[in-house]
């Protein structure tokens, strides 16, 4: 394991570098193919509005994956993430244009334990609104 952040370097409250991601319809198609989740609410406006959504929405699992990138980039090893839990609060609506939606990920150390693990509390927003009502990752520090 090659996590680059050592327990001695972090404290409760240590902030992770913020990340901003753009999500377009093309990204949703690509994620559908890679993940095998072809639910039409992620690519078809007609179906999305029929089930009461404002329009096509991003896969919750894509938002979850984007949020994890802030953690793995910081810790330096995707294999150091041992526990990851999110609660989907509100959908990320992805307009049919070239700009798409913006997803902003902020994180800070919420807790440290004696086994060299840190709990990262993430705040994930789109258009200024929280899209994950809970997002916590536990990482093994170096």
């Amino acid at each position, binding site marked *: 394991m090659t996590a680059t952040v050592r327990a001695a370097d972090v404290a409760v409250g240590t902030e992770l570098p913020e990340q901003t991601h753009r999500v377009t319809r093309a990204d949703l198609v690509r994620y559908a193919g890679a993940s095998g989740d072809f639910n039409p609410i992620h690519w078809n406006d007609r179906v999305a509005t029929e089930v009461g959504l404002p329009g096509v929405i991003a896969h919750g699992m894509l938002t979850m994956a984007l949020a994890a990138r802030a953690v793995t980039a910081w810790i330096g*090893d995707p294999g150091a993430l041992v526990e990851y*839990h999110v*609660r989907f609060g509100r959908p990320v609506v992805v307009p049919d244009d070239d700009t798409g939606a913006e997803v902003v990920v902020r994180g800070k150390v919420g807790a440290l334990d004696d086994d060299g693990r840190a709990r990262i509390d993430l705040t994930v927003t789109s258009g200024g609104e929280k899209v994950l009502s809970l997002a916590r990752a536990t990482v093994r520090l170096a």
Partner: protein
Amino acid sequence: MALDPTLVGRSYPPSAVYEVGREKIAEFAAAIGESSPVHRDADAARAAGHPDVIAPPTFAIVLTLSAAGVVVEDPDVDLDYGRVVHGEQRFTHHRAIRAGDRLIATPTIEAVRSVAGNDLLTTRVDVATEDGEPVCSATSMLVARGAG
């Protein structure tokens, strides 16, 4: 229609073997915009202490989503899938999934609840190698919104 509480604890037969390929890991990493070489380059992954390229932390959904299909198809699980949204997701990793892994996924119904007219179904999928080494667990909570 409320879900039958006696479903809690119901387990399903293990899935067929899913063999993790380097190209699939690279495809998934590209789809989430992740450029770390440990997902693409076996030498970089080895230099980082892994036996082969490793998968991003949410990659397990590729196999656990389809494995959980047996729960969806269980006629005893009376959930209106037209009204389902993904409520929560959790991954517990014993180690990173890596290229060459031959994985088996075993779903279990962990909880059923009814809250404010919505049906909540929590399914856990345990992923292990075909030799029985635990790799990860993926827990998904689905919400079927009440018809109002």
